[in-house]
């Protein structure tokens, strides 16, 4: 029985890490611009399709990854330019609708280009499970976990250790003050959207071998990720990992002990609790309004 519990926690936590990675994409752009790409899930899907196409042209896996990531960055920048920049300049909330529309456009484009079928995503990473103290886990799942943690550590280090990263943090902390110090907020926001696209592409490449690739592959994922982002608070990169792991395991445990029909329930309860008790999120900073 013990083994079953650990197995459930491990499998759930793994899905949780993927939620966290998508949530991290939300968090990156929110930090600099207080805006979110509601089409983040579609970026994950489009990047996965592009990567699959690259693989099908015969490109080896390790060369396909940079290609897919590059596409993610470009797509992220496109979303910023086409859907977000003008709305932000005019201090309007138009980006909400614009990013949703871009996302829908992405789904239609994918359906027309690649069709509506779910397709397998080939991977050189073995899918044979290996046993750790009675718990089965596949190398593929380990690669997802490692990839998620690695990219987040790299981006967090970049934000803390490099000059460009510090500009990023400065704009996050206080946009007007940062502009006065000669930091271009527009460029920093571009950077954040590019990074967010990169994260989406990586999520697509990492999870596709497990989830298969299809135009609606990310629609369930992105809702969970949004819950994670809201519960954790949109300020904390570390927070989304903790909440993601927690939510993923909780789902899996609920499904086992309470019943498979209740799988989605804990996430929703958590979301309601967070919004009712701590609207800024568990790891969010309390908002201080100066009057």
């Amino acid at each position, binding site marked *: *029985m013990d083994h*079953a519990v650990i*197995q*459930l926690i491990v*499998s*759930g936590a*793994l*899905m949780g890490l993927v939620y966290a990675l998508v949530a991290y994409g939300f968090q990156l752009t929110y930090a600099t611009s207080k805006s979110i790409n509601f089409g983040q899930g579609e970026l994950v899907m489009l990047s996965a399709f592009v990567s699959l196409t690259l693989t099908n042209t015969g490109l080896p896996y390790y060369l396909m990854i940079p290609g897919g990531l590059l596409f993610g960055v470009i797509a992220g920048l496109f979303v910023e330019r086409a859907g977000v920049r003008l709305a932000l300049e005019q201090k309007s909330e138009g980006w909400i609708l614009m990013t949703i529309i871009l996302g829908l456009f992405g789904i239609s484009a994918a*359906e027309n280009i690649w*069709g*509506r*079928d*779910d*397709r*397998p995503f080939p991977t050189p990473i073995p*899918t044979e*499970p290996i046993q750790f103290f009675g718990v*089965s*886990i*596949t190398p593929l799942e380990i690669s997802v976990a490692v990839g998620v943690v690695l990219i987040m550590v790299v981006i967090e280090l970049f934000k803390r250790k490099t000059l460009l990263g510090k500009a990023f943090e400065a704009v996050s902390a206080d946009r007007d003050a940062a502009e006065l110090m000669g930091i271009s907020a527009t460029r920093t926001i571009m950077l954040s959207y590019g990074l967010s696209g990169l994260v989406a592409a990586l999520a697509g490449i990492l999870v596709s071998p*497990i*989830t*298969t690739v*299809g135009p*609606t592959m990310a*629609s*369930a994922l992105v809702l969970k990720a949004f819950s994670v982002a809201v519960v954790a608070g949109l300020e904390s990169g570390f927070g989304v990992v903790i909440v993601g792991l927690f939510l993923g395991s909780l789902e*899996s*445990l609920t*499904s*086992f002990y309470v*019943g*498979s*029909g209740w*799988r*989605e329930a804990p996430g929703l309860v958590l979301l309601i609790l967070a919004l009712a008790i701590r609207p800024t999120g568990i790891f969010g900073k309390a908002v201080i309004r100066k009057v």
Partner: protein
Amino acid sequence: MKKRVLTVLLAGLITTQAYAADSIKIAITGPFSGGSAPMGASMRDGAKIAIAEINAAGGIKVGAKMMKFEVLERDDEAKNERGALIAQELASMSDLAGVIGTVNTGVCLAGDKHYQEKGITKIITPAAGSASMTQWSKAKVKDLSIFRLAAHDGIQAAMVVEEAINRKFTKVAMLYDSTNYGVSGRDDMVEQVKKQGNKLQVVTSDKFNIGDKDMTAQLLRAKNAGAQAVLIWGIGPELAAVANGMAKIGLKAPLIGGWTLSMSNFIDNSGKNGNGTLMPQTFIEEPITPKAKAFIAAYHKAYNVKRIPSPVSAAQGYDAVFIFAAAVKQAQSTDTKKIKLALEDLKEPVQGVITTWKKPFTAWNPANEETHEAFRREQVVMGMVQDGHVIFGNDADRKRLISNATSVKGKK
């Protein structure tokens, strides 16, 4: 110049009219794009092979004239509302002889009432959901113009349970998706377990949602309860997630379920984890009879493929056309109402690729949908996934079909 254009136009009119009067106008509907496309397109392509064969032989003799088939194709995209619109459009045509097709039970429910209203003869294939026929028996309609050539879920559920019993399993887990299709499939299976003497103990019964990828919890419950087989009702991608999840947690039990387990998106996405999966099939892509051999070769050649995306749909589309053609010949008319009457009482057996159909349908009786269902248990076999293909699950089925084919020959 003007005169010439007019003459050309007039000439065109005359020829098309003449053409229309000499042809049997038949519509093929189904999803030719999107997730259900493997089934829809295979059905259409199988039907078109049959039509090409008939037309190449000069058509069907109706009265003094030889008439050829003229095909209208309509893509319903597996959407109920599209299906309803198409049905309305087709039902308004006065010279339509009949309709063949529909993959999705929902589309049948949305559209077939338009055909029934106008009395247009339709053969449903390959939509298998029980509701597309039971809707008429529940409404107690007196006369029905809708027929079906597909192994309905009732037969399939019976076979799934029977297979588990034959393989000497006593403990099974049930898994189903949370859609109408999955839940009604589960109900059919539970009913069959009772009907077949409660020889199976259902140790767990769990559902999953469309889009779910992590099935660990449901599968661990099944494993801990000692399930020897997993009886499953769902659609392609989630079924593949189940097969992959079973391999991961080391649940070594066969998956047995509805015919959707033969969909290419299950077979491709589960890879070798799908091997050994069992499902009812009406046609296996194996050239065991001369008729099957010729059909498979014709399909591969006409559409330049090495594997029919959905062999069941293709074969059913093919046979539906031949059954329909036999009805036209017997009715000696392209009038859809006369064709319907002929279908209910086909005098001559029809040589199909699945079987030789002897009186597939009888006059509609609202108390018994089987009057308009062509398939009985004996025409359905168990298929098994093996390295990307569906093969015969039981050798006995294979031998039976071969001997059936030769015995028919012998009688001739």
